[in-house]
């Protein structure tokens, strides 16, 4: 029901983009904007991979690590959740070079956004692991599994299902926060839009197209995550019945 409505919205968005591109005033901007959109998607994908990795590591460290590592991961989570993503981008891009670390803008974008979303994701992962019923741990102990085996075979697969909806929200946040990278000179969708707006002053076509393109990307992510959720929870029901 929800997925169908989202699919209709996505189809409408794509149709609208296609219709607008038929108009020469709009078509003029499409190649440049699509180029920017590709960069946006690239940063999103790499950022998402880094975010999931950091979230898993930080959550497991916070839950099961020895005390110093637990503090370290709490510090990471609080710092990246407590300051704004834009400040983090600027810090990595403008301040790190002062300490002799030079990173190119693309790397900074992926690092800052991945670490930022990863910090939020760590809490999601932690919550999902905690929410797995106690009995599952006890049963795994009874089966004489090692702690790593318990996590890998029993706990994480169940936590995974609970994680999907909040991760969906975080990925949307990630898509949207990629627009910030335009402020550190990366030629993403937003950057291209600003550039075209400044050089042609055709504000309405440029920003309308940009909004629609972002909408298409976000809706694709939402639909993908909803499908994944459906798939994962279907397996769970079957497992419960059996």
């Amino acid at each position, binding site marked *: 029901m929800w997925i169908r409505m989202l699919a209709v919205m996505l189809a409408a968005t794509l149709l609208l983009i296609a219709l607008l591109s038929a108009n020469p005033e709009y078509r003029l901007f499409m190649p440049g904007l699509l180029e920017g959109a590709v960069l946006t998607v690239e940063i999103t994908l790499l950022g998402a991979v880094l975010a999931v990795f950091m979230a898993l590591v930080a959550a497991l460290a916070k839950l099961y690590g020895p005390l110093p590592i637990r503090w370290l991961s709490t510090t990471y989570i*609080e710092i990246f959740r407590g300051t704004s993503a834009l400040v983090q981008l600027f810090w990595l891009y403008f*301040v790190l070079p002062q300490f002799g670390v030079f990173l190119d803008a693309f790397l900074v974008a992926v690092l800052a956004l991945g670490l930022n979303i990863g910090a939020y994701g760590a809490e999601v992962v932690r919550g999902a692991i905690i929410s797995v019923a106690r009995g599952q741990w006890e049963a795994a102990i009874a089966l004489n599994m090692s702690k790593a085996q318990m996590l890998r075979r029993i706990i994480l697969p169940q936590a995974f299902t609970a994680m999907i909806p909040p991760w969906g929200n975080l990925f949307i946040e990630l898509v949207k926060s990629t627009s910030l990278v335009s402020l550190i000179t990366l030629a993403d969708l937003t950057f291209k839009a600003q550039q075209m707006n400044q050089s042609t002053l055709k504000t309405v076509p440029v*920003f309308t197209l940009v909004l629609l393109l972002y909408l298409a990307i976000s809706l694709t992510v939402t639909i993908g995550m909803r499908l994944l959720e459906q798939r994962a929870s279907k397996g769970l029901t079957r497992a419960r019945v059996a």
Partner: protein
Amino acid sequence: MWDWTFTFEILPVLARAAIMTVEATALGFVIAATLGLVLASIRLAFPAAGVVVTIFVELIRSTPLLIQIFFLYFVLPKAGIVLDAFTAGVAAIGIHYAAYCSEVYRAGFENVPRGQWEASIALNLSPWNTFKDIILPQALPPVVPALGNYLIALFKETPLLSAIAVLELMQTAKNIGSETFRYTEPVTLVGVFFLVMSLVSAGIIRMLESWLQRR
């Protein structure tokens, strides 16, 4: 590497800009909280209009705030509505978070047991009185923590206003940076300011939460 004299020199300038940031946060949140309540109420009162509200919320949630700020600042003037940078920015942030807040309020309304509505009908209260005196007072307290989280999120989005040259904290730090070629101190100070403010407000929200629970 880190120059303390320079730090103390720029501190007053940044402090003045911090006031602008707090102002933008407060105004933006007022818009978000009220407009969100209106949206959620429309959805509650007119289920037929609910679809429109749902689509509106989904549209706002799916596009970046930065683009929405640009849209209000650059596109609205073409339609004859000219807003200055601060107004456009605050309006964009307010409307963006109103979409999120409306979902929070909706959860609050759904938490009120059906029996409360039915009892109000039995007592012959008008729908408006039911909503105002029975439903709202029960729906609001449980959602205060969630609203508080969005207040912090909104606060952390205010640096985006620097993109349309509102003289808030980030823009001031950038200006200092481009005048003196020293970015380390201003940008770090901005980060510290946000961290401290977020931690403090998170603490206040936690206290408010436990106070509401005890009541």
